């Protein structure tokens, strides 16, 4: 891409050709010159779109009615293509260019790449769902995905198994449609969720489900492309006009990540118990309680809770003391702790191994990665707990009954456990006053404080989820601050 500060050189005919199809794989970068202002606008708007894609994906089932309606709306608002039609050429051009700009911003680290790929795949899936069967087939051919269809005899023999493997496959589907044999590595999403029949390393996919194959292909290609883009970054960064914008774009998605500790040493270990009752979000309170009760936490819990503690201001020395004193009360002796567990705590603070200073987990990360299993206490109670048990817990923490029923109906919005802590401390008159407050003896206000804080958490969940656009509004203010 070449950038000029003033003129756009438009070749209308070739645009009509280039953007004749409503959906594309972004195989070829745009070759025209575009104005710097367009460059900025396009990129920011696509980022907003991708943020919406992310939020909707957490709150709704992908491709459900609410999901598609809201994404339709957002696409319209931001002037992106969302249906096939003749007047879509300009929008498709914007789509094309903005995608490639964001590649520049999001190819730099593993985390950024993962995020970008995930949202682009989801966006693609949504747009693909609007294509006709014929158009979908065209994509297969375009991709050179030569998968074999199984014979009619084999279909008959496998009929029961095929029908029982997928909710969407009926006896009629088996009779009417071709089924393709695809190596399982090319259809991981279907394998992961067990939505397909798998035999001897091949999945059997009806024609109607070919989308998953395409998505996989799209994901792989994008991943490779990003790796390549990363290598040509130095050349791009040398252009002074682009560098600040690209930096903005790649930081915007993360929001505040609480990796830079602002209050190191301001929290003392004695405060943790009472802080956990007042200002910890439910997930961390749960972990803290489990730690106190069992004098132990498994790896997932240690990571989630340990990084949170780092985020609220615990120093490495404090953390070591904290974990050590608790584990010693259990089955671990001091020696064993120093050998086995101290290493991983230092690792969390970036003092071992590849010295990455790990960032405390955002709610998104807690909800979506590493679900808890038997013996675990980590995860998100609003996502991972039994509804009944969750109700009981909230009652125990003195959330009002109306607050509880609100939580039951609401889906949680994006946030960060450390953000909860910071906000809670502010409300309770925290900040510099934290120490002073802790020193004064138990007051009756403390009890109501605990209850109201918890109610506020539940209410926050109720409110925030109704304003998904909040996240994109944050984005605006980000750019204004710059």
């Amino acid at each position, binding site marked *: 891409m070449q950038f000029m500060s003033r003129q756009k050189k438009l070749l209308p005919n070739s645009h009509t050709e280039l953007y004749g199809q409503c959906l594309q794989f972004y195989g070829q970068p745009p070759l025209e010159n575009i104005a710097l202002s367009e460059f900025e606008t396009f990129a920011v708007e696509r980022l907003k779109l991708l943020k919406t894609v992310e939020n909707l994906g957490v709150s709704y089932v992908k491709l459900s009615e609410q999901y598609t309606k809201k994404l339709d709306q957002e696409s319209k608002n931001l002037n992106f293509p969302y249906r096939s039609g003749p007047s879509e050429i300009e929008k498709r051009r914007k789509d094309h260019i903005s995608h490639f700009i964001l590649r520049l911003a999001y190819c730099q680290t593993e985390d950024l790449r993962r995020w970008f790929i995930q949202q682009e795949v989801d966006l693609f899936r949504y747009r693909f769902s609007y294509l006709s069967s014929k158009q979908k087939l065209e994509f297969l051919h375009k991709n050179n995905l030569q998968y074999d269809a199984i014979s009619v005899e084999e279909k008959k023999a496998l009929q029961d*198994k095929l*029908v*029982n*493997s*997928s*909710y969407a496959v009926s006896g009629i589907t088996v009779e009417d449609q071709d089924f393709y044999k695809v190596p*399982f*590595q090319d259809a*991981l*999403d279907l*394998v*992961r*969720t*067990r939505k397909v*029949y*798998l*035999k*001897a*390393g*091949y999945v059997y996919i009806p024609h109607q489900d070919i989308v998953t194959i395409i998505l996989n292909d799209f994901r792989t290609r994008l991943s490779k492309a990003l790796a390549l883009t990363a290598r040509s970054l130095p050349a791009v960064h040398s252009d002074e006009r682009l560098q600040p914008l690209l930096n903005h774009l790649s930081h915007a998605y993360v929001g505040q990540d609480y990796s830079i500790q602002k209050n190191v040493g301001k929290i003392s270990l004695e405060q943790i118990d009472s802080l956990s009752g007042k200002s910890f979000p439910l997930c961390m309170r*749960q972990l803290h309680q*489990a730690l106190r009760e069992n004098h132990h936490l498994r*790896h997932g819990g240690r990571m989630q809770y340990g990084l949170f503690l780092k985020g609220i201001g615990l120093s490495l020395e404090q953390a070591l003391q904290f974990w050590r004193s608790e584990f010693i009360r259990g089955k671990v002796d001091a020696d*064993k702790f120093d*050998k*086995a567990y101290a290493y991983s705590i230092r690792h969390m603070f970036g003092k071992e191994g590849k010295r990455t200073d790990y960032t405390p987990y955002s709610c998104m990360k807690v909800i979506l990665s*590493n*679900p*808890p*299993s*038997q*013996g*675990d*206490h*980590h*995860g998100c*109670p609003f996502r*991972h*707990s*039994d509804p*009944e*048990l*969750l109700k009981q817990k909230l009652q125990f923490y003195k959330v009002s009954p109306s607050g509880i029923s609100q939580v039951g109906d609401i889906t949680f919005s994006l946030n960060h456990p450390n953000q909860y802590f910071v906000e809670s401390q502010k409300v309770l008159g925290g900040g510099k006053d934290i120490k002073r407050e802790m020193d004064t003896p138990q007051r009756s206000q403390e009890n109501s404080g605990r209850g109201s804080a918890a109610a506020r958490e539940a209410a926050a969940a109720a409110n925030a989820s109704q304003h998904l656009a909040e996240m994109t509004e944050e984005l605006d203010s980000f750019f204004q601050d710059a």
Partner: protein
Amino acid sequence: MPSSDYDPASLPDLLPLYYRRLFPFSQYYRWLNYGGVQKNYFQNREFSFTLKDDIYVRYQSFTTQNELEKEMQKMNPYKIDIGAIYSHRPNQHNTVKSGTFQALEKELVFDIDMTDYDDVRSCCSAADICCKCWTLMTIAIRILDRALREDFGFQHLLWVYSGRRGVHCWVCDEAARKLSVAARSAVAEYLSLIKGGEETVKKVVLTDPIHPFIRESLAVVERYFPRYALQEQDILGRKESVDKVLSLVPEDILFTVKELQQDFQNEKKPESRWKLVRDQATKKQATAKKGQYFEKEIMLQYCYPRLDVNVSKGVNHLLKSPFSVHPKTGRISVPINLKELDVFDPFAVPTISLICEELDRPRAGEDEEKSEESKDKENEKDAAERRKIRDYKRTTLAKYVKYFDQFLDAMARSWKGELLRKSDLQKEF
């Protein structure tokens, strides 16, 4: 059996003996070299050792079998872990430009740990196991082995006893070794049915249609359920157990639970009680659209394998090596012969103290072997050398090494094919 005579304090004395005379180095190398089909496959493999006083060293690598032997005999590791095959020799990773040292391939592995079943076994908890709950491992192996072979098409699976409270599976097919992180995670998710931690009561939920994989797994569970769960674990015996089982019947079928509780007052035999539960479920399956498979869900929650997805996901994840010693129990991590799975007894697995003891004990027929050796003058190998090769054969370890050999023979046939293909491509004669 003398196995129970193992004393952890004796490890420093036993390990040198084990690594000098018993550890099956040539089979071990044969395995990890994978027929030499890929260059530097063995040389780029990471090993990690846990030494005396819990000193842990990573990024160990070796160029030859001989070097591996010498190092292990020098360091006498308490524990050995196997990691991935990297882009460069692990022991030189510090000299490699940052970012270019990458884990490339590794076997697909699974780790089944008895502790993960604590909420559903009444006989033991934590690190303890007994013959009653060991059935859970048998069930896990049968279910996973079938799925990995029939559903995923893998052929070369090595199941290994971990030495204390679980089993590991090493899937050694080439396709398995080349799987990406995403693929490994997808395989592990496909095989997972138990969802939820401490806070979740009902950990298995089935919806229509029931996938063939679940049906096959259920078939295995049903074979073992009457004896394992109803008799040995007695889950429908004591009141607390019964309550726990009934808590898995869905809420909106409350009337069912009340009915069952009443029926149980008259019916005390576990088998009959279970039949009552099944009958209720059958009734529901005729009418209800949700929660109607609760009897299957109960069976699965009590018996279905629980695997740690994180172990299987990572290409660079380190896992305990076969033939490694378990420092707490002294047991050797031996391969399990699936043909004898139903009679496998973890308490009969040899300990390091047992096999070291057996080294000194002459076996019946040994005298005949000795005279054969002295007769054979044309044999180039030194008598001592030959004795060393046969040492493990004098011990209980022998049959496990033999089984390992058979496993390697089967794989070797595929390596041969690969080598032929490669030499054809290079037109070597």
